[in-house]
C-alpha cells in the first residue's frame, strides 16, 4: 500500500524536476501578490505588521490554487491518468500520493519564501516562526481539498477559474485558523488554540478529502 503511494510520489517529483518553470511561476506569484499589498495600502510598518499574516495566508492560498488546476489535467491529457486509475491499487491512494506530491512541490517552497516576505511585512521573529508553523500545518489542507476541486473540474472548459470558485469557500477555516495563529501571537494571546484547531482541520481533511476526490476522479473519467 505505501509502496504505491511512494511510486506515485516518486513519479510526480521526477516530473516536477523536469519542468522547473512551473514550480518557479507559483513561487513568484506568491511573492508578487504579497508585494502588491504594501503598494496598495501604503508602507506604514505598524499597519503592514497588522495585515501581514492575513495577506501572506491569502497569497499562499491563491498560489496553491494556481498550480492545482494541473494536478490531474496533464496526466489526463496524455492518457496516463486512465492507466493510473486502472491500476489494481486503490484510487484513494493515488489521490493521496498526488496531493502529497503537490504539497512537497508547491507547498514546502512557500514555507521557504514566507520568512522573507514576513520581514518585508515587518513581522517579529516570533510571529514569523508561528507563520511557518501555521503554513506547515495549513498548506497540506490546501493540497488535499484542492485535489477534490481538481478532480471535479477535470477536462472542463474554464476549469481553472471554476476550481477557484468551488474550492475557495472550503479554504475559509484554514485561512482563519492559520492567519489567526499569527495574529494571536502578535496580540499576546498565544497561538496554541489556533494551531490545534488548524491541526484538527488538517486531520479531518486528510480523512475525508481523498475519498471524495477519488470518487470525483472516477466520475470525471467516465
Amino acid at each position, binding site marked *: 500500500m505505501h*509502496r*504505491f503511494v511512494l*511510486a*506515485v510520489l*516518486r*513519479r510526480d517529483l*521526477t*516530473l516536477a524536476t*523536469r*519542468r522547473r518553470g512551473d514550480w518557479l511561476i507559483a513561487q513568484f506569484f506568491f511573492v508578487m501578490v504579497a508585494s502588491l499589498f504594501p503598494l496598495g495600502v501604503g508602507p506604514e510598518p505598524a499597519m503592514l505588521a497588522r495585515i501581514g499574516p492575513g495577506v501572506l495566508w491569502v497569497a499562499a492560498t491563491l498560489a496553491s490554487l494556481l498550480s492545482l488546476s494541473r494536478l490531474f489535467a496533464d496526466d489526463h*491529457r*496524455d*492518457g*496516463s491518468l*486512465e*492507466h*493510473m*486509475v*486502472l*491500476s*489494481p*491499487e486503490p484510487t484513494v491512494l*493515488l489521490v493521496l500520493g498526488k496531493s502529497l506530491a503537490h504539497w512537497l512541490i508547491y507547498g514546502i517552497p512557500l514555507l521557504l519564501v514566507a520568512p522573507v516576505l514576513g520581514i518585508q511585512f515587518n513581522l517579529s521573529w516570533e510571529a514569523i516562526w508561528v507563520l511557518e508553523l501555521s503554513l506547515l500545518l495549513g498548506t497540506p489542507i490546501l493540497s488535499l481539498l484542492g485535489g477534490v476541486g481538481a478532480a471535479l473540474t477535470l477536462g472542463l472548459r474554464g476549469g481553472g477559474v471554476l476550481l477557484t470558485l468551488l474550492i475557495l469557500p472550503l479554504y475559509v477555516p484554514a485561512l482563519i485558523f492559520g492567519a489567526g495563529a499569527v495574529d494571536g501571537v502578535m496580540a499576546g494571546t498565544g497561538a496554541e488554540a489556533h494551531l490545534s484547531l488548524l491541526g484538527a482541520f488538517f486531520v479531518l481533511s486528510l480523512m475525508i478529502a481523498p475519498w471524495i476526490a477519488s470518487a470525483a476522479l472516477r466520475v470525471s*473519467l*467516465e
Partner: protein
Amino acid sequence: MSDFLLSVHDLACARGDRLLFKGMNFSLKTGELLLVQGGNGQGKTSLLRLLTGLARPEAGEVRWCGALIGRQRETFHAAMVYLGHANGVKDDLNPVENLRFAEGLQGRTFDAPRAVATLERLGLSRCLDLPCRVLSFGQRRRVALASLLLAGAVLWILDEPLTGLDVHAVTLMEGLIRDHLTAGGMVVATTHQALNLEGVNVQRLLVGNVAIPELAVN
C-alpha cells in the same frame, strides 16, 4: 494459463441523450480475439471503456470469470491492460523511465533488463535515453506497446492499436497479438486497418447500426 472468461450481458450504453447500443451479449474465452467493428461515433470506444470499468453501463453487466468487474476491481485490473487513444506516455521522461513508473503504478516491481529488451524488440534501441518529447508519434506508440507487453496481463483491451504505426510495426503488432493469444491470452481490439490474423480465433462484433465493408482477414 488457466481458463478465463469475459462475458457481457444485455449491455447498453448511452452518450448524453443518444442510446449507442443496447442488449449486447457476447463472451470471450482464453485464446480468442474480439474484433470490434463499426463506423465512427457508433460506440466502439465507449464499449471498450465499459469493458475496462472506467465507464458505467446504462444497463446490463460486464463479468470477469463469472463475477461482476466492479466487485473484484483489484483482481480484474491486475488481469487487464488497456491502451486507449492517448498513449499514457510522459513526454518529459525517456522510454525506460516511462516503463519504470508505469510498472510502479501498477504495483509491480520493475525488471530493468527485461524492459530494455522489450523496448529493443520493438525497435526503440536508439531512443532509450531520449525524452519521449522528441520521439515520433509511432515511436511513442511503441513505448506504450512495450508497457503493454511488460504488464503480462491476460486480457488486452486495445483501442485502435495500429494508428500511427508503419508497416513493420503493424506486422510486429500482428505477431504480438498472435503470440499473446497462443499463450492463452485474450484480446479485445478496435481497428480500421486490415489485420493479418492467420490461425487466430476471431470473433467479430458490429457496434451500432451502420454496416461497414468487411475488413480483409488473411
